[in-house]
C-alpha cells in the first residue's frame, strides 16, 4: 500500500513546520521515515546534505547500512503520541540515560542537564517520580525534555497531545510554543490542534490521501485556503479562522 505518493518536500534549517490533515493521510509516516522507524520503497530523503536511507559506495547509491542510519539518527529526535518514557526509570533517569549511553556525557553533567531541562518544562519537583506516577501531560513534558537533552538538529513531534485529556493539552503546547520561539532547531509537528499550528509554524502543510494538497503561511492557510479540500477540513475546526 502506498501511504505517501510522489511527495516532494523541502524543509529549511530552523524552519517550524506543521503538518495537518485527516487521520491516515500520511503525515505521521513522514515523521516515522525521518526517524528511520519506517522504510521507503522509492525515492530519496536527504538530511543535512546526507542521504538518510541510502549511502554512496564506489560512486553508487546503495541502501543505507545500520552504521549509516546510526550516524544519521544522531541529529534527529522524536516525541511520540504515547510518550514512550522508559517505565523502569524515573523522570530524571529517563533524561539522563540517553545522554550517558549515546552522547557519552559524564553522569554528573548528564544529571545537571536533565535537571535544567526538567526546570524548562516546569517539572523540577517531579525529578524522582516514575512515569506511572505522573499525569499524561507531565509524562509528555518529560519526553520532550528527554529528546531535547540529545541536542537534535531536527525535532519531530508526532501528535504529542492526541493521547492527553483535554485539560492537560495546554501545558504541553505551552512548552512547545516556547521551544519554537526560542530555538533554531528544525521542527516538524503533526497536530490536530489548529490554533497551536497557527502560532507554532512558519509553514503549514495540508495533507490528504498521501499528498500535499496545499502549503503555505499559516495566516493564509487558516484564513483563506485556496483548495476546497483544505477548506472542508478546516471547517470542522470551528474555533479557527
Amino acid at each position, binding site marked *: 500500500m502506498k501511504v505517501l505518493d510522489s511527495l516532494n518536500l523541502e524543509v529549511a534549517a530552523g524552519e517550524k513546520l506543521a503538518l495537518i490533515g485527516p487521520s491516515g493521510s500520511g503525515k505521521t509516516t513522514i515523521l516515522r521515515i525521518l526517524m528511520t522507524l519506517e522504510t521507503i520503497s522509492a525515492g530519496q530523503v536527504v538530511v543535512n546534505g546526507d542521504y538518510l536511507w541510502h549511502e554512496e559506495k564506489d560512486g553508487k547509491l546503495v541502501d543505507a547500512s545500520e552504521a549509516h542510519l*546510526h550516524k544519521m539518527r544522531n541529529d534527529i529526535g522524536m516525541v511520540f503520541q504515547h510518550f514512550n518514557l522508559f517505565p523502569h526509570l524515573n523522570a530524571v533517569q529517563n533524561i539522563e540515560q540517553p545522554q550517558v549511553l549515546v552522547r557519552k556525557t559524564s553522569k554528573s553533567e548528564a544529571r545537571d542537564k536533565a535537571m535544567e531541562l526538567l526546570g524548562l518544562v516546569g517539572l523540577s519537583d517531579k525529578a524522582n517520580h516514575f512515569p506511572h506516577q505522573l499525569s499524561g501531560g507531565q509524562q509528555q513534558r518529560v519526553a520532550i525534555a528527554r529528546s531535547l537533552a540529545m541536542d537534535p538538529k531536527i525535532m519531530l513531534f508526532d501528535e504529542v497531545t492526541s493521547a492527553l485529556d483535554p485539560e492537560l493539552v495546554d501545558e504541553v503546547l505551552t512548552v512547545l510554543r516556547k521551544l519554537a520561539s526560542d530555538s533554531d532547531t528544525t521542527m516538524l509537528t503533526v497536530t490536530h490542534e489548529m490554533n497551536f499550528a497557527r502560532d507554532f509554524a512558519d509553514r503549514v502543510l495540508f495533507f490528504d490521501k498521501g499528498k500535499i494538497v496545499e502549503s503555505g503561511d499559516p495566516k493564509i492557510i487558516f484564513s483563506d485556503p485556496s483548495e476546497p479540500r483544505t477548506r472542508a477540513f478546516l471547517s470542522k475546526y470551528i474555533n479557527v479562522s
Partner: protein
Amino acid sequence: MHWDWAVAAEVFPRLMAGLVVTVQATFVGAALAYALGLVLAILKMSENRAVRWTVYWLSEFIRRTPLLVQLYFLFYVLPDLGLFLSPFLAGVIGLGLHFSTYTSEVFRAGIENVPKGQWEAAKSLNYTMAQTWTRVVLPQSIPPMIPPLANYLITMFKETPLLAAITVVELFNAANIYSNSYYKYLEPMTLVGALFLLVSIPSAYAAMWLEQKYSRRN
C-alpha cells in the same frame, strides 16, 4: 502395618544423599532449561520463516512426548549411536530440553509484552541494539518472567523421580532401592513424600510472593 522408627532412622541418611542429587538435578536441569529456553525464544522471534517453523515443530515434538520416553531415549538409545551419557547427565539434559520448550514461551511472552513504542523510543534516542536490549527491553521484561520461571523450577523438582528410570539415585530412587532390598515401603516412601513437601511448599509460597511483588509494579 505399623511405623518402625528404626527403619526410618536407618533409611534417613540415604534419603538425604538422594535429596542432594535431586536438588542438583533440579538446578542444573533448570539452568539448562532457562538458557536453552532463551535461545529458543529468540529463534521463535526470528525474521526467517524457516527458522521459526523448524523451532516451532521441534518444540512441539519435545513438548508433546513424555519426558520418561525422552529420558529412555537419551540413556538407552543414544549409546547405540555411539553417544554414552552418564545417568545424571542424561537426566539433566532430558529435564532441561523438555522444560526449555515451556520456558521459551515465558521468555517470548515477556519480550513481546514490551510495547513497540519502547523499541521506537530507544531507536529515536539512537541506542544501539545491545543498549536497547540491556537498558530498555530486558529490564522491563525480566521481572514479570520471574514468577513463571520459579514455578517451572518447582515443577522440575517434582519431576525428578523420573530420573530413577535411568538409574539416577535421587531421592525417590534412594528410597526405592532400600525398599526393594528390605521389603519396607511405609517409612521410606512416607519420608520421601514428606521431604518433597518440605521443599515444595515453601518454594510455592515463595513463588506466590514473587508473583505479588512483580505484578504490583504495573
